[in-house]
Protein backbone atom coordinates (compact mmCIF):
# COMPACT_ATOMS: atom_id res chain seq x y z
CA UNK A 1 0.00 0.00 0.00
CA UNK A 2 2.60 2.57 1.07
CA UNK A 3 4.96 1.34 -1.66
CA UNK A 4 2.18 2.02 -4.12
CA UNK A 5 1.66 5.57 -2.81
CA UNK A 6 5.39 6.31 -3.20
CA UNK A 7 5.52 4.64 -6.61
CA UNK A 8 2.57 6.69 -7.84
CA UNK A 9 4.18 9.93 -6.74
CA UNK A 10 7.44 9.00 -8.48
CA UNK A 11 5.66 8.15 -11.71
CA UNK A 12 3.73 11.42 -11.56
CA UNK A 13 7.03 13.21 -10.99
CA UNK A 14 8.78 11.52 -13.92
CA UNK A 15 6.00 12.26 -16.33
CA UNK A 16 5.46 15.75 -14.99
CA UNK A 17 9.00 17.07 -15.02
CA UNK A 18 10.68 18.64 -18.06
CA UNK A 19 14.02 17.10 -17.11
CA UNK A 20 12.74 13.56 -17.54
CA UNK A 21 11.30 14.48 -20.93
CA UNK A 22 14.65 15.93 -21.93
CA UNK A 23 16.36 12.68 -21.04
CA UNK A 24 13.65 10.79 -22.89
CA UNK A 25 14.21 13.04 -25.90
CA UNK A 26 17.97 12.47 -25.91
CA UNK A 27 17.38 8.76 -25.45
CA UNK A 28 15.12 8.54 -28.48
CA UNK A 29 17.26 10.77 -30.70
CA UNK A 30 20.28 8.64 -29.95
CA UNK A 31 18.55 5.30 -30.47
CA UNK A 32 16.93 6.70 -33.63
CA UNK A 33 20.32 7.69 -35.06
CA UNK A 34 21.79 4.29 -34.29
CA UNK A 35 18.84 2.60 -35.88
CA UNK A 36 18.93 4.62 -39.14
CA UNK A 37 22.64 4.00 -39.41
CA UNK A 38 22.07 0.27 -39.03
CA UNK A 39 19.37 0.31 -41.72
CA UNK A 40 21.71 2.22 -44.01
CA UNK A 41 24.53 -0.28 -43.53
CA UNK A 42 22.15 -3.18 -44.02
CA UNK A 43 20.66 -1.77 -47.22
CA UNK A 44 24.03 -1.00 -48.83
CA UNK A 45 26.10 -3.95 -47.59
CA UNK A 46 23.34 -6.51 -48.05
CA UNK A 47 23.91 -7.98 -44.57
CA UNK A 48 21.18 -9.13 -42.21
CA UNK A 49 19.80 -6.44 -39.91
CA UNK A 50 20.51 -7.00 -36.21
CA UNK A 51 17.17 -6.84 -34.37
CA UNK A 52 19.04 -6.36 -31.08
CA UNK A 53 20.80 -3.22 -32.29
CA UNK A 54 18.84 -0.85 -30.00
CA UNK A 55 19.18 -2.91 -26.79
CA UNK A 56 22.87 -3.47 -27.50
CA UNK A 57 23.43 0.25 -27.92
CA UNK A 58 21.53 0.89 -24.70
CA UNK A 59 23.93 -1.34 -22.79
CA UNK A 60 26.47 1.47 -23.05
CA UNK A 61 24.02 4.35 -23.04
CA UNK A 62 22.50 3.22 -19.73
CA UNK A 63 25.82 3.73 -17.98
CA UNK A 64 25.23 7.45 -18.49
CA UNK A 65 21.45 7.67 -18.48
CA UNK A 66 20.61 5.56 -15.42
CA UNK A 67 22.53 7.87 -13.02
CA UNK A 68 20.72 10.89 -14.45
CA UNK A 69 17.35 9.23 -13.99
CA UNK A 70 18.00 8.15 -10.42
CA UNK A 71 20.24 10.87 -8.94
CA UNK A 72 17.38 12.87 -7.45
CA UNK A 73 15.37 9.97 -6.03
CA UNK A 74 16.67 10.07 -2.46
CA UNK A 75 19.27 12.84 -2.59
CA UNK A 76 16.55 15.42 -3.21
CA UNK A 77 14.42 14.14 -0.33
CA UNK A 78 17.42 14.50 1.92
CA UNK A 79 18.21 18.03 0.76
CA UNK A 80 14.62 19.31 0.90
CA UNK A 81 14.08 17.78 4.34
CA UNK A 82 11.15 15.70 3.12
CA UNK A 83 13.11 12.62 4.11
CA UNK A 84 12.43 13.56 7.73
CA UNK A 85 8.70 13.44 7.09
CA UNK A 86 8.97 10.22 5.08
CA UNK A 87 10.89 8.58 7.90
CA UNK A 88 8.28 9.67 10.44
CA UNK A 89 5.37 8.38 8.36
CA UNK A 90 4.10 4.94 9.37
CA UNK A 91 5.95 3.35 6.47
CA UNK A 92 8.79 0.81 6.54
CA UNK A 93 12.07 2.15 5.12
CA UNK A 94 11.98 -0.65 2.54
CA UNK A 95 8.67 0.59 1.13
CA UNK A 96 10.21 3.99 0.42
CA UNK A 97 13.23 2.54 -1.39
CA UNK A 98 11.26 -0.06 -3.33
CA UNK A 99 8.60 2.47 -4.34
CA UNK A 100 11.27 4.83 -5.65
CA UNK A 101 13.08 2.06 -7.51
CA UNK A 102 9.91 0.78 -9.14
CA UNK A 103 9.05 4.34 -10.18
CA UNK A 104 12.37 4.72 -11.98
CA UNK A 105 12.11 1.28 -13.53
CA UNK A 106 8.59 2.06 -14.71
CA UNK A 107 9.77 5.21 -16.46
CA UNK A 108 12.66 3.36 -18.08
CA UNK A 109 10.26 0.62 -19.21
CA UNK A 110 8.09 3.24 -20.87
CA UNK A 111 11.12 4.61 -22.75
CA UNK A 112 12.10 1.10 -23.77
CA UNK A 113 8.62 0.33 -25.04
CA UNK A 114 8.73 3.39 -27.29
CA UNK A 115 11.86 2.05 -29.00
CA UNK A 116 9.82 -0.99 -30.00
CA UNK A 117 8.56 1.28 -32.78
CA UNK A 118 11.86 0.62 -34.56
CA UNK A 119 11.04 -3.09 -34.57
CA UNK A 120 7.90 -2.35 -36.54
CA UNK A 121 9.93 -0.39 -39.07
CA UNK A 122 12.34 -3.29 -39.24
CA UNK A 123 9.52 -5.79 -39.71
CA UNK A 124 8.25 -3.72 -42.64
CA UNK A 125 11.51 -3.92 -44.60
CA UNK A 126 12.94 -7.27 -43.59
CA UNK A 127 12.08 -10.37 -41.61
CA UNK A 128 13.66 -9.98 -38.20
CA UNK A 129 14.02 -12.90 -35.81
CA UNK A 130 11.48 -11.98 -33.13
CA UNK A 131 12.94 -14.46 -30.66
CA UNK A 132 16.18 -12.53 -30.91
CA UNK A 133 14.30 -9.26 -30.33
CA UNK A 134 12.41 -10.55 -27.31
CA UNK A 135 15.56 -12.00 -25.71
CA UNK A 136 17.50 -8.79 -26.22
CA UNK A 137 14.70 -6.59 -24.88
CA UNK A 138 14.19 -8.78 -21.82
CA UNK A 139 17.93 -8.64 -21.21
CA UNK A 140 18.25 -4.88 -21.53
CA UNK A 141 15.16 -4.42 -19.37
CA UNK A 142 16.78 -6.35 -16.52
CA UNK A 143 20.15 -4.71 -17.25
CA UNK A 144 18.43 -1.32 -16.99
CA UNK A 145 16.85 -2.30 -13.67
CA UNK A 146 20.29 -3.19 -12.31
CA UNK A 147 21.86 0.12 -13.42
CA UNK A 148 18.93 2.06 -11.93
CA UNK A 149 19.37 0.20 -8.63
CA UNK A 150 23.04 1.21 -8.59
CA UNK A 151 22.02 4.82 -9.27
CA UNK A 152 19.43 4.71 -6.47
CA UNK A 153 22.01 3.41 -4.04
CA UNK A 154 24.36 6.34 -4.66
CA UNK A 155 21.42 8.72 -4.42
CA UNK A 156 20.69 7.33 -0.96
CA UNK A 157 24.18 8.18 0.26
CA UNK A 158 24.32 11.91 -0.31
CA UNK A 159 22.17 15.00 -0.52
CA UNK A 160 24.09 16.21 -3.54
CA UNK A 161 22.59 14.98 -6.80
CA UNK A 162 25.72 15.69 -8.85
CA UNK A 163 27.85 13.65 -6.47
CA UNK A 164 25.33 10.81 -6.64
CA UNK A 165 25.29 10.87 -10.45
CA UNK A 166 29.08 11.06 -10.66
CA UNK A 167 29.73 8.10 -8.40
CA UNK A 168 27.09 5.90 -9.96
CA UNK A 169 28.45 6.73 -13.43
CA UNK A 170 31.99 5.78 -12.37
CA UNK A 171 30.74 2.56 -10.79
CA UNK A 172 28.68 1.59 -13.81
CA UNK A 173 31.52 2.44 -16.17
CA UNK A 174 33.87 0.23 -14.17
CA UNK A 175 31.32 -2.57 -14.20
CA UNK A 176 30.95 -2.10 -17.93
CA UNK A 177 34.71 -2.00 -18.56
CA UNK A 178 35.30 -5.06 -16.39
CA UNK A 179 34.45 -7.12 -19.45
CA UNK A 180 37.32 -5.63 -21.45
CA UNK A 181 39.61 -5.83 -18.43
CA UNK A 182 38.78 -9.50 -18.05
CA UNK A 183 40.04 -10.15 -21.54
CA UNK A 184 43.50 -8.71 -20.98
CA UNK A 185 44.16 -10.12 -17.51
CA UNK A 186 46.68 -12.97 -17.76
CA UNK A 187 45.56 -14.99 -14.76
CA UNK A 188 42.59 -17.01 -15.99
CA UNK A 189 40.95 -17.35 -12.58
CA UNK A 190 41.14 -13.63 -11.81
CA UNK A 191 39.98 -12.83 -15.30
CA UNK A 192 36.98 -15.05 -14.84
CA UNK A 193 35.98 -13.40 -11.59
CA UNK A 194 36.34 -9.94 -13.11
CA UNK A 195 34.33 -10.92 -16.14
CA UNK A 196 31.63 -12.51 -13.98
CA UNK A 197 31.13 -9.16 -12.28
CA UNK A 198 30.80 -7.22 -15.48
CA UNK A 199 27.46 -6.03 -16.73
CA UNK A 200 28.45 -6.47 -20.34
CA UNK A 201 29.43 -10.13 -19.92
CA UNK A 202 25.91 -10.94 -18.77
CA UNK A 203 24.30 -9.18 -21.65
CA UNK A 204 26.39 -9.25 -24.85
CA UNK A 205 27.15 -12.99 -25.24
CA UNK A 206 23.69 -14.17 -24.24
CA UNK A 207 20.78 -11.71 -24.32
CA UNK A 208 22.52 -9.85 -27.15
CA UNK A 209 22.00 -12.91 -29.35
CA UNK A 210 18.54 -13.63 -28.03
CA UNK A 211 19.72 -16.24 -25.55
CA UNK A 212 17.92 -16.19 -22.22
CA UNK A 213 20.16 -17.70 -19.55
CA UNK A 214 19.06 -18.23 -15.97
CA UNK A 215 22.44 -17.15 -14.58
CA UNK A 216 22.21 -13.79 -16.35
CA UNK A 217 18.71 -13.17 -15.06
CA UNK A 218 19.91 -14.12 -11.57
CA UNK A 219 22.90 -11.77 -11.94
CA UNK A 220 20.80 -8.71 -12.76
CA UNK A 221 18.12 -9.51 -10.19
CA UNK A 222 20.89 -10.12 -7.67
CA UNK A 223 22.38 -6.68 -8.31
CA UNK A 224 18.93 -5.13 -7.90
CA UNK A 225 18.30 -6.91 -4.59
CA UNK A 226 21.74 -6.10 -3.17
CA UNK A 227 21.59 -2.44 -4.21
CA UNK A 228 18.08 -1.99 -2.79
CA UNK A 229 19.16 -3.63 0.45
CA UNK A 230 22.17 -1.30 0.72
CA UNK A 231 19.94 1.70 -0.05
CA UNK A 232 17.59 0.73 2.76
CA UNK A 233 20.54 0.51 5.15
CA UNK A 234 21.81 3.89 3.96
CA UNK A 235 18.36 5.36 4.61
CA UNK A 236 18.34 3.87 8.08
CA UNK A 237 21.68 5.52 8.76
CA UNK A 238 20.01 8.90 8.19
CA UNK A 239 18.18 8.28 11.45
CA UNK A 240 21.40 8.17 13.40
CA UNK A 241 22.74 11.54 12.41
Amino acid sequence: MSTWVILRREIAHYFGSPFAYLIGFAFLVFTGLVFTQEIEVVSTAQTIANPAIIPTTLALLLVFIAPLLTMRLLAEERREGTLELLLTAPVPDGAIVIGKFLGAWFYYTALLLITLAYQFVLAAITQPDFGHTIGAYLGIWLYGGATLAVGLFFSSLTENQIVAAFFSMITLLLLWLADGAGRVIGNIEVARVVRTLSLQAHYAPSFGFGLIKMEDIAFFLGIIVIMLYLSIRALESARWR
Partner: protein
Amino acid sequence: MFMSEAIMTNILRQSAKLCGIVSLMSIRLSSVIDVCLTAIRETSTIGRRVDSERKMIEVDKLTKRYGSFTAVDHISFKAKKGEIVGLLGPNGAGKTTTMRMLTGFMPPTDGSASIAGFDISDESMEARRNVGYMPERIPVYPDMTVKAYVMFWAQLRGERRPSAQVNDVLQRVQLYDRRNMLIRHLSKGMRQRLGLAQALVHNPPVIILDEPTIGIDPQQVIEVRETVRMLGKDHTVLFSTHILNEAEQVCDRVLIIDKGHIIAQGKPGELRDRLQSGAVIYVEIGGTNADAARKLLSGIPGVTAVEKQGAGWLVKSKRDHDTRAEISGRVAKVGYTLLEMRQEQTSLESIFLELVGKDST
Protein backbone atom coordinates in the same frame (compact mmCIF):
# COMPACT_ATOMS: atom_id res chain seq x y z
CA MET B 1 -66.56 -15.78 0.09
CA PHE B 2 -66.11 -16.91 3.70
CA MET B 3 -63.27 -19.08 2.70
CA SER B 4 -61.47 -16.36 0.91
CA GLU B 5 -61.98 -13.98 3.84
CA ALA B 6 -60.55 -16.58 6.21
CA ILE B 7 -57.64 -17.08 3.93
CA MET B 8 -57.13 -13.32 3.68
CA THR B 9 -57.11 -12.86 7.47
CA ASN B 10 -54.79 -15.79 7.76
CA ILE B 11 -52.44 -14.29 5.26
CA LEU B 12 -52.62 -10.94 7.04
CA ARG B 13 -51.92 -12.60 10.36
CA GLN B 14 -49.02 -14.51 8.91
CA SER B 15 -47.56 -11.45 7.30
CA ALA B 16 -47.93 -9.49 10.52
CA LYS B 17 -45.99 -12.24 12.27
CA LEU B 18 -43.40 -12.12 9.54
CA CYS B 19 -43.10 -8.38 9.93
CA GLY B 20 -42.60 -8.87 13.63
CA ILE B 21 -39.86 -11.39 13.01
CA VAL B 22 -38.28 -9.12 10.44
CA SER B 23 -38.37 -6.16 12.75
CA LEU B 24 -36.96 -8.30 15.54
CA MET B 25 -34.29 -9.46 13.19
CA SER B 26 -33.51 -5.93 12.19
CA ILE B 27 -33.06 -5.05 15.83
CA ARG B 28 -30.75 -8.01 16.20
CA LEU B 29 -29.01 -7.04 13.02
CA SER B 30 -28.45 -3.50 14.17
CA SER B 31 -27.04 -4.72 17.46
CA VAL B 32 -24.79 -7.07 15.53
CA ILE B 33 -23.63 -4.15 13.39
CA ASP B 34 -23.02 -2.16 16.55
CA VAL B 35 -20.90 -4.91 18.00
CA CYS B 36 -18.96 -5.17 14.75
CA LEU B 37 -18.43 -1.42 14.61
CA THR B 38 -17.13 -1.32 18.16
CA ALA B 39 -14.86 -4.22 17.34
CA ILE B 40 -13.58 -2.35 14.29
CA ARG B 41 -13.10 0.78 16.32
CA GLU B 42 -11.20 -1.16 18.91
CA THR B 43 -8.93 -2.80 16.40
CA SER B 44 -8.22 0.40 14.52
CA THR B 45 -4.92 1.75 15.76
CA ILE B 46 -5.84 5.42 15.79
CA GLY B 47 -6.56 6.26 19.36
CA ARG B 48 -6.62 2.68 20.54
CA ARG B 49 -5.89 2.07 24.20
CA VAL B 50 -6.52 5.67 24.91
CA ASP B 51 -9.31 7.17 26.91
CA SER B 52 -9.39 10.80 27.79
CA GLU B 53 -7.67 10.17 31.09
CA ARG B 54 -4.71 8.43 29.54
CA LYS B 55 -1.51 10.29 28.96
CA MET B 56 -1.15 10.99 25.25
CA ILE B 57 2.55 11.64 25.50
CA GLU B 58 4.61 9.85 28.10
CA VAL B 59 8.33 10.41 28.15
CA ASP B 60 10.47 8.50 30.60
CA LYS B 61 14.18 9.26 31.04
CA LEU B 62 14.56 9.79 27.32
CA THR B 63 18.20 10.22 26.33
CA LYS B 64 20.05 10.87 23.11
CA ARG B 65 23.81 10.78 22.85
CA TYR B 66 25.94 11.57 19.85
CA GLY B 67 29.27 10.04 20.69
CA SER B 68 30.36 11.79 23.85
CA PHE B 69 27.89 14.65 23.40
CA THR B 70 24.57 14.25 25.18
CA ALA B 71 21.89 16.21 23.35
CA VAL B 72 18.98 15.09 25.51
CA ASP B 73 19.69 13.88 29.01
CA HIS B 74 17.14 11.78 30.89
CA ILE B 75 14.11 13.95 30.35
CA SER B 76 10.70 12.86 31.58
CA PHE B 77 7.32 14.46 31.17
CA LYS B 78 3.71 13.66 30.39
CA ALA B 79 0.94 15.34 28.47
CA LYS B 80 -2.80 14.72 28.71
CA LYS B 81 -5.39 14.88 25.99
CA GLY B 82 -6.24 18.46 25.11
CA GLU B 83 -3.11 19.88 26.66
CA ILE B 84 -0.75 22.29 24.94
CA VAL B 85 2.78 21.74 26.16
CA GLY B 86 5.54 24.14 25.21
CA LEU B 87 9.17 23.17 25.00
CA LEU B 88 11.03 26.34 25.72
CA GLY B 89 14.75 26.73 25.44
CA PRO B 90 17.60 28.41 23.63
CA ASN B 91 18.85 27.05 20.31
CA GLY B 92 20.67 23.76 20.68
CA ALA B 93 18.96 22.92 23.96
CA GLY B 94 17.68 19.58 22.68
CA LYS B 95 14.13 20.54 21.67
CA THR B 96 14.34 19.28 18.11
CA THR B 97 16.15 16.10 19.13
CA THR B 98 13.41 15.35 21.67
CA MET B 99 10.75 15.87 19.02
CA ARG B 100 12.60 13.75 16.49
CA MET B 101 12.70 10.87 18.92
CA LEU B 102 8.99 11.20 19.69
CA THR B 103 8.05 11.23 16.01
CA GLY B 104 10.06 8.08 15.32
CA PHE B 105 12.65 9.81 13.17
CA MET B 106 15.55 8.77 15.36
CA PRO B 107 15.77 6.04 17.96
CA PRO B 108 16.60 7.10 21.54
CA THR B 109 19.91 6.03 23.04
CA ASP B 110 18.23 5.33 26.35
CA GLY B 111 14.90 5.64 28.09
CA SER B 112 11.46 5.21 26.61
CA ALA B 113 8.47 7.17 25.42
CA SER B 114 4.99 6.44 24.19
CA ILE B 115 2.51 8.24 21.99
CA ALA B 116 -1.19 7.53 22.58
CA GLY B 117 -0.15 4.44 24.51
CA PHE B 118 2.15 3.05 21.80
CA ASP B 119 5.82 2.67 22.59
CA ILE B 120 7.95 4.63 20.12
CA SER B 121 10.48 1.81 19.78
CA ASP B 122 8.45 -1.39 19.98
CA GLU B 123 5.27 -0.15 18.30
CA SER B 124 6.83 2.46 16.09
CA MET B 125 4.34 2.22 13.20
CA GLU B 126 1.29 2.64 15.46
CA ALA B 127 2.98 5.46 17.36
CA ARG B 128 3.85 7.24 14.12
CA ARG B 129 0.29 6.86 12.84
CA ASN B 130 -0.91 8.80 15.88
CA VAL B 131 1.39 11.77 15.41
CA GLY B 132 1.23 14.75 13.13
CA TYR B 133 4.63 16.38 12.80
CA MET B 134 5.71 19.70 11.39
CA PRO B 135 9.52 20.02 11.28
CA GLU B 136 11.17 23.38 11.74
CA ARG B 137 12.02 23.80 8.07
CA ILE B 138 8.85 22.94 6.21
CA PRO B 139 9.69 20.06 3.88
CA VAL B 140 7.90 20.45 0.57
CA TYR B 141 7.93 19.04 -2.93
CA PRO B 142 8.06 22.26 -4.97
CA ASP B 143 6.69 20.61 -8.11
CA MET B 144 3.53 19.29 -6.51
CA THR B 145 0.24 21.10 -6.19
CA VAL B 146 -0.99 22.00 -2.73
CA LYS B 147 -3.76 19.43 -2.86
CA ALA B 148 -1.63 16.60 -4.26
CA TYR B 149 0.94 17.23 -1.53
CA VAL B 150 -1.53 16.98 1.33
CA MET B 151 -3.19 14.00 -0.38
CA PHE B 152 0.18 12.24 -0.64
CA TRP B 153 0.84 12.51 3.09
CA ALA B 154 -2.70 11.46 3.96
CA GLN B 155 -2.37 8.32 1.86
CA LEU B 156 1.07 7.55 3.16
CA ARG B 157 -0.34 7.64 6.68
CA GLY B 158 -2.89 5.04 5.74
CA GLU B 159 -5.96 7.09 4.86
CA ARG B 160 -7.83 5.18 2.15
CA ARG B 161 -10.08 7.87 0.71
CA PRO B 162 -8.68 11.11 2.00
CA SER B 163 -10.28 13.51 -0.49
CA ALA B 164 -12.86 14.92 1.91
CA GLN B 165 -10.30 15.18 4.73
CA VAL B 166 -7.85 16.95 2.45
CA ASN B 167 -10.42 19.54 1.39
CA ASP B 168 -11.44 19.97 4.99
CA VAL B 169 -7.94 20.57 6.28
CA LEU B 170 -7.12 22.92 3.39
CA GLN B 171 -10.13 24.98 4.34
CA ARG B 172 -9.01 25.03 7.93
CA VAL B 173 -5.61 26.46 7.03
CA GLN B 174 -7.12 28.75 4.40
CA LEU B 175 -5.35 27.22 1.43
CA TYR B 176 -8.42 25.75 -0.23
CA ASP B 177 -8.53 28.51 -2.83
CA ARG B 178 -4.96 27.74 -3.76
CA ARG B 179 -5.30 23.98 -3.83
CA ASN B 180 -4.26 23.73 -7.48
CA MET B 181 -1.25 26.01 -7.16
CA LEU B 182 2.26 24.62 -7.37
CA ILE B 183 3.99 24.71 -4.00
CA ARG B 184 6.99 26.56 -5.47
CA HIS B 185 4.72 29.58 -5.92
CA LEU B 186 3.57 29.73 -2.30
CA SER B 187 4.82 32.40 0.09
CA LYS B 188 6.63 31.52 3.28
CA GLY B 189 3.54 31.97 5.42
CA MET B 190 1.46 29.78 3.12
CA ARG B 191 4.12 27.08 3.21
CA GLN B 192 3.94 27.23 6.97
CA ARG B 193 0.20 26.63 6.80
CA LEU B 194 0.75 23.86 4.30
CA GLY B 195 3.14 22.24 6.76
CA LEU B 196 0.38 22.44 9.34
CA ALA B 197 -2.17 20.95 6.91
CA GLN B 198 0.15 18.02 6.29
CA ALA B 199 0.45 17.41 10.04
CA LEU B 200 -3.31 17.56 10.63
CA VAL B 201 -4.75 15.75 7.65
CA HIS B 202 -4.92 12.29 9.22
CA ASN B 203 -6.46 13.78 12.35
CA PRO B 204 -3.83 12.48 14.78
CA PRO B 205 -4.43 12.72 18.54
CA VAL B 206 -0.91 14.09 19.07
CA ILE B 207 0.52 17.01 17.13
CA ILE B 208 4.18 17.98 17.33
CA LEU B 209 5.21 21.35 15.95
CA ASP B 210 8.86 22.38 15.85
CA GLU B 211 9.18 26.17 16.05
CA PRO B 212 6.00 26.84 14.08
CA THR B 213 6.29 30.63 14.23
CA ILE B 214 9.85 31.05 13.06
CA GLY B 215 10.50 33.29 10.08
CA ILE B 216 6.97 34.44 9.31
CA ASP B 217 5.44 37.89 9.60
CA PRO B 218 3.81 39.07 12.86
CA GLN B 219 0.26 38.83 11.55
CA GLN B 220 0.85 35.20 10.60
CA VAL B 221 2.53 34.52 13.92
CA ILE B 222 -0.69 35.55 15.63
CA GLU B 223 -2.70 33.31 13.31
CA VAL B 224 -0.46 30.32 13.96
CA ARG B 225 -0.71 30.87 17.72
CA GLU B 226 -4.49 31.00 17.46
CA THR B 227 -4.47 27.82 15.42
CA VAL B 228 -2.35 26.08 18.03
CA ARG B 229 -4.73 27.18 20.76
CA MET B 230 -7.64 25.87 18.73
CA LEU B 231 -5.90 22.55 18.13
CA GLY B 232 -5.41 22.21 21.86
CA LYS B 233 -9.16 21.68 22.23
CA ASP B 234 -9.18 18.16 20.77
CA HIS B 235 -5.54 17.29 20.34
CA THR B 236 -2.48 17.07 22.48
CA VAL B 237 -0.02 19.60 21.16
CA LEU B 238 3.69 19.65 21.86
CA PHE B 239 5.38 22.66 20.44
CA SER B 240 8.78 24.17 20.74
CA THR B 241 9.78 27.79 20.76
CA HIS B 242 12.56 29.99 21.96
CA ILE B 243 10.23 32.96 22.25
CA LEU B 244 9.21 33.22 25.87
CA ASN B 245 6.13 35.26 25.67
CA GLU B 246 4.82 32.92 22.99
CA ALA B 247 5.11 29.99 25.36
CA GLU B 248 3.41 32.11 28.01
CA GLN B 249 0.52 33.00 25.69
CA VAL B 250 -0.13 29.67 24.07
CA CYS B 251 0.79 26.85 26.43
CA ASP B 252 -1.08 25.23 29.24
CA ARG B 253 2.24 24.01 30.52
CA VAL B 254 5.81 25.02 29.83
CA LEU B 255 8.90 22.86 30.03
CA ILE B 256 12.05 24.91 30.16
CA ILE B 257 14.84 22.91 28.63
CA ASP B 258 18.51 23.73 28.51
CA LYS B 259 21.51 21.60 27.57
CA GLY B 260 19.32 18.52 27.36
CA HIS B 261 17.80 18.89 30.83
CA ILE B 262 14.38 20.07 31.90
CA ILE B 263 15.30 22.80 34.34
CA ALA B 264 11.79 23.90 35.26
CA GLN B 265 8.23 23.02 34.39
CA GLY B 266 4.72 24.10 35.22
CA LYS B 267 1.91 26.42 34.18
CA PRO B 268 3.28 29.76 32.98
CA GLY B 269 1.69 31.58 35.92
CA GLU B 270 2.83 29.00 38.44
CA LEU B 271 6.35 29.09 37.11
CA ARG B 272 6.41 32.82 37.58
CA ASP B 273 5.11 32.57 41.13
CA ARG B 274 7.41 29.76 42.08
CA LEU B 275 10.53 31.30 40.68
CA GLN B 276 9.93 34.89 41.48
CA SER B 277 12.39 35.56 44.25
CA GLY B 278 10.46 38.53 45.59
CA ALA B 279 8.32 41.50 44.68
CA VAL B 280 9.61 44.35 42.54
CA ILE B 281 8.07 47.78 42.79
CA TYR B 282 8.72 50.73 40.54
CA VAL B 283 8.73 54.06 42.40
CA GLU B 284 9.16 57.60 41.14
CA ILE B 285 9.70 60.29 43.70
CA GLY B 286 9.60 64.05 43.13
CA GLY B 287 11.11 66.92 45.14
CA THR B 288 14.39 65.26 46.12
CA ASN B 289 17.80 64.30 44.80
CA ALA B 290 18.95 60.82 43.86
CA ASP B 291 21.10 60.14 46.92
CA ALA B 292 18.39 61.11 49.36
CA ALA B 293 15.81 59.00 47.54
CA ARG B 294 18.07 55.98 47.45
CA LYS B 295 18.86 56.36 51.13
CA LEU B 296 15.19 56.64 51.99
CA LEU B 297 14.18 53.59 49.98
CA SER B 298 17.06 51.44 51.20
CA GLY B 299 16.12 52.18 54.76
CA ILE B 300 12.73 50.54 54.47
CA PRO B 301 12.55 47.14 56.23
CA GLY B 302 12.41 44.15 53.85
CA VAL B 303 13.98 45.94 50.92
CA THR B 304 16.84 43.95 49.43
CA ALA B 305 17.94 46.17 46.56
CA VAL B 306 17.31 49.54 45.02
CA GLU B 307 18.19 50.17 41.40
CA LYS B 308 17.91 53.28 39.29
CA GLN B 309 15.63 52.86 36.33
CA GLY B 310 14.82 55.83 34.10
CA ALA B 311 13.43 58.62 36.22
CA GLY B 312 12.56 56.28 39.06
CA TRP B 313 13.71 53.33 41.13
CA LEU B 314 13.20 49.60 41.12
CA VAL B 315 12.74 48.49 44.69
CA LYS B 316 13.19 44.76 45.25
CA SER B 317 11.97 43.26 48.44
CA LYS B 318 11.67 39.87 50.13
CA ARG B 319 8.88 37.64 48.97
CA ASP B 320 6.46 38.18 51.89
CA HIS B 321 7.00 41.86 52.45
CA ASP B 322 4.54 44.31 50.98
CA THR B 323 6.55 47.49 51.14
CA ARG B 324 4.12 49.75 49.31
CA ALA B 325 2.38 51.25 52.37
CA GLU B 326 5.70 51.87 54.05
CA ILE B 327 7.16 53.59 50.98
CA SER B 328 4.25 55.98 50.50
CA GLY B 329 4.13 56.70 54.24
CA ARG B 330 7.82 57.58 54.47
CA VAL B 331 7.86 59.62 51.32
CA ALA B 332 4.97 61.74 52.56
CA LYS B 333 6.52 62.09 56.01
CA VAL B 334 9.74 63.69 54.76
CA GLY B 335 7.81 65.96 52.42
CA TYR B 336 8.63 64.46 49.03
CA THR B 337 6.02 63.73 46.39
CA LEU B 338 5.18 60.23 45.26
CA LEU B 339 4.78 60.57 41.48
CA GLU B 340 4.32 56.95 40.59
CA MET B 341 4.29 53.52 42.18
CA ARG B 342 3.46 50.22 40.52
CA GLN B 343 4.04 46.51 41.00
CA GLU B 344 6.40 45.11 38.37
CA GLN B 345 5.51 41.72 36.92
CA THR B 346 8.43 39.42 36.59
CA SER B 347 8.12 38.08 33.09
CA LEU B 348 8.85 34.52 32.19
CA GLU B 349 11.71 35.97 30.24
CA SER B 350 13.63 37.12 33.27
CA ILE B 351 12.96 33.82 35.03
CA PHE B 352 14.18 32.03 31.97
CA LEU B 353 17.33 34.07 31.67
CA GLU B 354 17.97 33.59 35.34
CA LEU B 355 17.57 29.83 35.10
CA VAL B 356 19.59 29.40 31.94
CA GLY B 357 22.23 31.75 33.26
CA LYS B 358 22.49 29.85 36.53
CA ASP B 359 22.95 26.64 34.67
CA SER B 360 25.76 27.89 32.49
CA THR B 361 27.82 29.43 35.30
